[in-house]
């Protein structure tokens, strides 16, 4: 055959072979995005709830006038208590980014909205969805739609192969058409757990120690502006969180978020260490509250209680701090990091632990290897969460000073896990975080000695890689 014919035939045959990929993805369509199908799902796989809810509302433009946004926690909000024409837009790991994108899609496609309720999680200040196509939905312009559909068509999706290989059938679902159906089940579950003795652990969701407070506030401002321009009543409220989860987070960052949020929009704040947070009966686990907590929030919002504005935000912050102080659970790590200007002469202090000391003993897990050099110790981390526990180190003083210096070629977290009692377990709630930056890091941390004597656990990084530990010394203070 001649070369012109060769070129065209080659292109056609290779494209036919290649088309196996999008065709199989289209036929299987585990997310149900490609079929815009909100009536059926595969039992084994989660459909893309947010996308399908938007598709459903675009097909039913005037059915509801109130939308109630939220993350999976919002799935336990009985929206019929807000309005009989309310629809729950809750979706797993919902952030203001996904709220904003989907709201734009709805408004651009002519969906009528009169009231918008937005439930905000603490994790919106660190969880970033901007690079996660799986979380975003588009109906705004051709390029965005193209990006979304090509993501689901031209990519190897293991679920597609499993569906085709095992001929998994589709089943009918009401998840999108009637999200309220699950509330009745949740109320039954709530009754079942009431008064039961459970040890609920903290649930820290994708906490990285890297924040996006300004972006989150900017997105909320954009939602506010959209509401203003479309004559929509906006109600913003912040969910409560379980006390152990609350304590695991850097509250100064949450406070910063609240202050910035109040400068943009009034909101109802249920995020503190009050009764909602500390009563175990209010929680299925460390993340999701029970429906009666949602009922409480709706009632209080309707009566304008818990309202935070520009004017009272500082008072509110004071109140939440007081909650910490007065809370019935006694936990106050009271660790602090000395800043650079604090002078401290360590010459006269007694060293109780030095990683360079040949006789030093401690427990370490096998997620890393330490190679001692003259000037530094190379820590080769081959698995996540490398840790050592200073189980043989005791401090006779009230406070202990930890001087730690490490060279890192990536941003990561340095974490100390603290135990109040010798026999307690290490918990996410009892944790002290410091951000490790690229380059050389140097910290001086003052630690109450009870935590040293109860076997301090040190996770010097969260990530795999090679680090140089230049100093790790504990001194008895005073």
């Amino acid at each position: 055959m001649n070369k012109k014919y060769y070129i065209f035939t080659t292109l056609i045959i290779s494209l036919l072979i290649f088309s196996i990929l999008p065709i199989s993805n289209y036929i299987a369509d585990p997310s149900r995005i490609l079929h815009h199908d909100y009536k059926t799902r595969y039992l084994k796989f989660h459909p893309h709830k947010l996308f399908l809810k938007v598709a459903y509302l675009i097909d039913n433009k005037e059915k509801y006038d109130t939308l109630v946004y939220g993350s999976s926690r919002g799935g336990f909000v009985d929206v019929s208590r807000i309005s009989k024409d309310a629809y729950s837009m809750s979706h797993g790991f919902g952030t203001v980014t996904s709220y904003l994108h989907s709201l734009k899609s709805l408004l651009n496609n002519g969906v009528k909205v009169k009231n918008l309720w937005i439930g905000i999680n603490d994790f919106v200040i660190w969880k970033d969805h901007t690079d996660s196509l799986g979380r975003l939905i588009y109906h705004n312009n051709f390029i965005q739609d193209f990006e979304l559909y090509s993501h689901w068509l031209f990519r190897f999706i293991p679920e597609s192969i499993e569906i085709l290989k095992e001929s998994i059938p589709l089943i009918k679902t009401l998840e999108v058409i009637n999200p309220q159906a699950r509330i009745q089940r949740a109320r039954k579950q709530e009754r079942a757990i009431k008064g039961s003795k459970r040890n609920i652990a903290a649930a820290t969701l994708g906490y990285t120690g890297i924040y996006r407070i300004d972006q989150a506030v900017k997105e909320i401002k954009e939602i506010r502006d959209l509401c203003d321009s479309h004559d929509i009543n906006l109600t913003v409220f912040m969910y409560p969180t379980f006390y152990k989860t609350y304590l695991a987070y850097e509250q100064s960052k949450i406070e910063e978020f609240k202050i910035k949020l109040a400068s943009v929009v009034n909101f109802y704040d249920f995020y503190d260490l009050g009764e909602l947070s500390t009563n175990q009966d209010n929680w299925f686990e460390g993340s999701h509250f029970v429906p009666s907590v949602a009922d409480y929030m709706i009632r209080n919002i309707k009566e304008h209680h818990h309202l935070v504005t520009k004017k009272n935000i500082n008072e509110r912050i004071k109140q939440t701090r007081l909650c910490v102080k007065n809370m019935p659970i006694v936990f106050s790590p009271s660790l602090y990091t000395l800043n650079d200007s604090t002078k401290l002469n360590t010459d006269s202090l007694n060293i109780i632990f030095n990683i360079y000391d040949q006789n030093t003993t401690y427990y370490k897990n096998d997620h890393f290897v330490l190679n001692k050099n003259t000037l530094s110790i190379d820590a080769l981390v081959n698995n996540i969460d490398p840790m050592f526990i200073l189980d043989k180190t005791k401090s006779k003083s009230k406070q202990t000073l930890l001087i730690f210096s490490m060279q890192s070629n990536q941003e990561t977290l340095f974490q100390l896990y603290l135990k109040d009692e010798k026999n307690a377990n290490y918990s996410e709630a009892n944790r002290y975080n410091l951000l490790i930056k690229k380059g050389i890091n140097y910290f001086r941390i003052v630690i109450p000695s009870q935590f040293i004597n109860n076997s301090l656990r040190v996770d010097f990084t969260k990530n795999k890689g090679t680090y140089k530990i230049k100093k790790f010394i504990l001194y008895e203070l005073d």
Partner: protein
Amino acid sequence: MLFNSYIFIFFFFPITFFIYFYLNKKRLTEASKGFLVLSSLFFYSWWNIAYLPLILISMLFNYTLGRELSKPTQSEKSYSAKTLLTAGIIFNLGLLGYFKYSDFFITNINTAMNGHIPLLNLALPLAISFYTFQQIAYLVDSYRKETKEYDFLNYAVFVTFFPQLIAGPIVHHAEMMPQFALLKNKVKNYHNISLGLFIFAIGLFKKVIIADSFAIWATQGFDVEKTLNMLEAWFTSLSYTFQLYFDFSGYTDMAIGIALLFNIKLPINFDSPYKATSIQDFWRRWHITLSRFLKDYIYISLGGNRKGEIRTYTNLFATFLLGGIWHGAGWTFILWGTLHGLALVIHRAWQKLGLHMPMILAWFITFNFINIAWVFFRAKEWEDAIKVLSSMFNFDGELFSKSKQFSHMIHYVHPISEYIKFNIINYTFWVIILGFIITLYFKNSNQLSIQFDKKKTIPISWLLFTSILLGLSLILIGFNTSSEFLYFNF
């Protein structure tokens, strides 16, 4: 933008191709050239637009200096020409050094003097090592009065032409500029298009299917596993040896194929390097355009073999040491360059002595030397290199580990391994055997393209061969959407 991405294959390339030839068809040749430069800069900026000013400044500076250097000079002005050239080389090497080697120096100073100078943590601008070398060659040739009166647009096409911009082949202005000027190259040529498509399909297959499969084992062995038994260590090093070849030669094939579609012939960069029977032979077959640059602009500039035997050895060694440093800022690269420099010195001395070696033995020694030296090239830290090498020669240890490493590695074999269960030992063994067969027994892409070129009509079998390679590779791109080429790091 990667050659092995849908955005390149289905959008960037076809759009650029059709607009370029459309402009030429309308006899807007300068506009077509300008369009090619803009497209190339867009292609370059796709990764990070922050690098764009750097390449523009570098181009403008070198073009202006080259023009100045190429002007006829009076003898009394020759000193200033030399000064200009020196300044130009210092500028280029300074730029490269600042981005590529600053942190390496700071780290070493900190280690030697127990200092705490913070690292700059600069991101290495893409392609800087390649376009810097091309432009240094241009400056040197301008100084030697070997360049012609190029206008800036021609010069910009030469530097930025997207098929070779990111990772070579390192082209010479004398072989590129005339091709861009040739009128017959401005018309679509179905012969070149068919040949280009053929070479591109081979390159894409090499990268997406062969190199990326070897990468899984190499990454596991070098970066993840703490300990390796002897067999795993050999699988790790051989996997990387094959990965690097198929990755880089695959990239080069794609670059050559794409350039051919624009009627531009890029120089070949590989000629079955693992068939080499000596280290000198290897460097005539591996990254040929780098070897050419090192020879023309470093080895010969140092005096080559014209200043006696000892100086020849020193020059050879220095050239390859610099070659090692060019590849990356790290002691492992320096050691890799040193090893190759020493091997070339030993080879030359061996030749001087007039000694002979059976072909098979010569191949065996060469291949193993290259394979072992690649361990230093690949390792991120000394410890990684030592881990692999010590396990490769740990005759006291066990050949097969008692641990469950093999069984847990199955998850890393290939994304489709979830669905098609492999016996991991057999799988890796046969893949490595296949690597040997392809590199040693099969014709390489240059030989195949020569064969293709000679055919007036294409047999059906060749059509099917190209279509299947291309079709399968396109599917596999969907399996692994972010697989960069290894030489992008250099």
